Structure formats: C-alpha cells, structure tokens
C-alpha cells in the first residue's frame, strides 16, 4: 500500500514538474515570438536604409549610437526625468481631482445630469488645443505642460469613476444599508471596492493619454523633456538619429508604464 502510495505521489510530482516545465516553456516561446517580431522589424528597417543610402533617415545602429551619445552627455536622464516629472504631476493632480469628482457625479445622478454635457463638450477638444491658453495662464514652463497633461488625464478618470459608481449593483447598496452601514462605511467598504476594477482601467487609459500629451506639450511650452529633444534635434542640425532615438524612448517608456499599470490591475 505504502509503496503504491509513494509511487502515485512521485508520479503526481512528476506531473506537476512537467506542468511547471511546460508553462515555463510556453512562456519562453511567447517571449521569443514577441522578440522575433521586433527583430524582424529592425532588420527590415536596416535593409530599407541600406537600399536607400541617400536618405536622411538613420538606421537602427545610428539611432542606438544616438541614444548612447545622449546618455554619455547626461541628456538622456535629464530629458527622461523631465518628461516623467511633468507626467507624474499632471497625472497625480488628475487622479486627485478626477476620482472624487467622478465618484460624486456617479452617486448624485442630478449633478451628473448638470455637469455631463459640459464634460462631453470638453472631451473632443484635444488637450493640445489648450496649449495657447495654458501658456497664457502659466507662462512658458512646467506649469503649462503639467496643466495640459492634467487636462488630458482628468477626463478619462472622471468618466471612468462616474460610470463605475453608477454601475454599483443596487443589491449591494441595499445589503450594506441592511447591515447598518453609515455613509462613510458605505463608501469605504462597498462603493470603493466595487468601483476599483473599472477605475483602474480608466486610470490606465489616462496614463496613456498623459504620456501622449507630454511630448506634444514639451514641443511648445518648455525646453526640456523628450518632446523638446525631438524638436530640438531637428532644429539644431537635422539630427534625425536623435529624433528617432527620442521616438523610440517615448515608445519604450510608454510601454513600460502600461505594463506597470496592468500589473496593478491584476493585483
């Protein structure tokens, strides 16, 4: 009996081991597939540049050396930090305003009915259209850029919070009242956990928007950051290697932010 049991348990262990191995193999295969996609694209890019040597556009190697050049001069860290700094401020402000505002609008449907048309009219106005006004209000500098990022991020967060609260099932609210919860407990113990999944999705969208907007804001309103790097590299001697380097950095960092938010979403 005991031998049988042991054999069975060892077989079970082998199965588990295989499963782990399998999942690891699957994960490696997925990663390889993604990487090979990027590699193919880079190869095609090199090939295209090699076939048209006269073009002003840089190849991947030249872009890489551009990044290294920026890093060596300390500009890489400076621009990246400048952009992230503005995004952080604009985004944090948007979260601080958007979540409470959205929660209130979702809870008091009448307030929503009053404010919603205004928000819907604001929504199609690109945050970039605010650049002249924000420079008028805040001058050329971080304030203007932060304001534009805030505008870009606050609407998706507000709308997500409003919809999330409106979607809290009434049975949950009634159950909470039945168990004698006061309004503060109701907010903390029922409404907040109930809206959180939808809210995080909205926050992820908003962070994406904020990152899109920062580049444009920096092209006009300030003299640092990745957006400024791109414009400056073109103006100061057509350094298209640095232009493309800036673009690649924006893409990679944006992807990183999204991955981070998605991780948050899962927990």
């Amino acid at each position, binding site marked *: 009996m005991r031998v049988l049991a042991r054999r069975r348990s060892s077989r079970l262990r082998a199965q588990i081991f295989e499963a782990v191995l399998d999942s690891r193999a699957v994960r490696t295969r997925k990663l390889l597939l993604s990487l090979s996609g990027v590699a193919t694209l880079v190869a095609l890019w090199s090939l295209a540049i090699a076939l048209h040597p006269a073009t002003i556009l840089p190849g991947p190697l030249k872009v890489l050396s551009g990044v290294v050049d920026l890093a060596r001069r300390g500009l890489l860290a400076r621009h990246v930090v400048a952009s992230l700094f503005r995004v952080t401020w604009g985004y944090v402000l948007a979260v601080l305003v958007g979540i409470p505002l959205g929660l209130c609008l979702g809870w008091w449907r009448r307030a929503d009915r009053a404010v919603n048309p205004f928000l819907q009219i604001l929504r199609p106005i690109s945050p970039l259209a605010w650049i002249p006004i924000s420079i008028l209000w805040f001058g050329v500098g971080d304030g203007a850029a932060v304001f534009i990022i805030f505008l870009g991020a606050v609407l998706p967060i507000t709308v997500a919070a409003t919809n999330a609260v409106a979607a809290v099932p009434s*049975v949950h609210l*009634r*159950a909470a*009242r*039945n*168990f*004698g919860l006061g309004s503060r407990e109701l907010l903390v113990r029922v409404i907040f956990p109930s809206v959180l999944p939808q809210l995080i999705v909205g926050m992820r969208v908003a962070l994406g928007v904020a990152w899109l907007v920062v580049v444009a804001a920096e092209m006009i309103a300030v003299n640092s950051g990745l957006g400024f790097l791109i414009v400056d590299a073109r103006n100061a001697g057509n350094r298209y290697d640095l232009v493309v380097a800036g673009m690649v950095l924006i893409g990679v960092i944006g992807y990183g932010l999204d991955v981070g938010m998605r991780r948050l979403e899962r927990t």
Partner: protein
Amino acid sequence: MVAEAVPTRAPIKIAIRGVRMRFGAVEVLRDVDLDVREGELVCLVGPSGCGKSTLLNIVGGFFAPSGGEVRIDGEPVRGPDPRRIFVFQERGVFPWLTVEGNIAFGLSKLPREERARIVAHYVELVGLEGFARAFPDELSGGMKQRVEVARALAVKPDVLYLDEPFGALDSITRLQMRSELLRILQAEKKTMLFVTHDIEESVQLADRVVVMSTRPATVQRIVDIDLPHPRDLSSPRYLALRDSIFEAIGLAHKI
C-alpha cells in the same frame, strides 16, 4: 382577511395593516393585512408582477408605503435594520470579498476572535468548508446562495426576508437548497417571510402560504400547510394543498 387560524399561539412578530402602494398611476398594493407570528415561515405567492416583492420591500423598510403601516414587535418600521436581514438572489454577495469576508460583513464591530469563531461556525453550517478563502467567482450559484444565507444568519437577525432566493438556480440545486434551508432553520429558528413564484416551493417550505391576487394585490387567501417536516411530496395531503393553491391563483394544474 387575517381571519384564517394561525398554526401556533406564538406572539405576533410582523403586523401588516392596511398597506397600500402606488407608483405614479399604478396601484400595486391595496389594503394588505397580514400577521406573521414569531418563528413562522410564511410564503407569499402570486402571479408574477403582482406586487409581492414590493410588499416584502415595504416590510423590509426599503420602500415607504403610500398608506397603512408595518409594525414589528409593535414598533413601526422606519427603514432597513440589521435585526431583520433581506436575502437576495445570489448576486447579492460581494465579489471583492472571500466567502469569509462576506459572512463577516455585518460583524465588523465585534472583536477579531469572536468574529472568526462566528464565521467558522456559519461556514460549516452552510456546508462551505474548504471554500472559506474562495472568492464568489470561483463558486457555483448554489454555493453563492449559501454564502448569502450565512451572511444573513451571522448577524443573528430575528427575521429573514427572502425574495425569490432560489429563483436563479437550476431545479436540482433549488431542491437541494430548500432542504438545506430547512436543515439550517432547525438549528436557528427565525421568523421568515419568503416570496416565491414557485407554488411547489411554497408548499414544501411554509407554515402558511399567502396567495396574493393580481394587481392591485390584496391577500386573496391564506392556506395553512399542516404537514410535518420532512414532507412527503407525493402524499395526498401535500398534493391537495398544492392543488388548492394552484386553484386559488386560477391555474388549472394540467398542461
């Protein structure tokens, strides 16, 4: 309308007096009178949309009636109260809390150890051992319904209101849940008002079945179910009682 004899001499727990309800131009309830005695299980049945859920919501304190009043232990009902818990269909469980977290929901004012003891007791009572840390998404409909019942019982209410609690479950699970409910009630006697559209269910569970008329609903008839538990679902008395309710609702029990 309360004329029919009640089976026990227990004191009156819930007194519904002349309750009327209108929603705009629609008259839903007209002069409903009903007494529920302590420890009694009363089922409300009636055609769908007749207002039996509305009545339960008024008794539960979620709606204020347009007229008349509900008294519990002689006190008029002014709103929902933790001494009287409403059990919804299984979608009432909180999806962000585990089974334990849901059952402990109404116990936040108790010290941690006592809470844990009560939760463990009810996890066992409703047969969810091994699922205490599971989230509702991982549970079947019947299991979620058990969580709801446990969450309600954990706060030691004297009254339970059940609004078609098993309505969303498949027929096999529903039958199991009914016998589970009766088993649980033997451990903890409660006064219960149970809304159902399932006549069989009402005859299997209730001490009395209140048949409501079509809208505007009144109490049309009260049937005493004088059958001991466990009930034999093929006994002539059971069938006679069931058929009398079908008849009262105006349904020929033939297809």
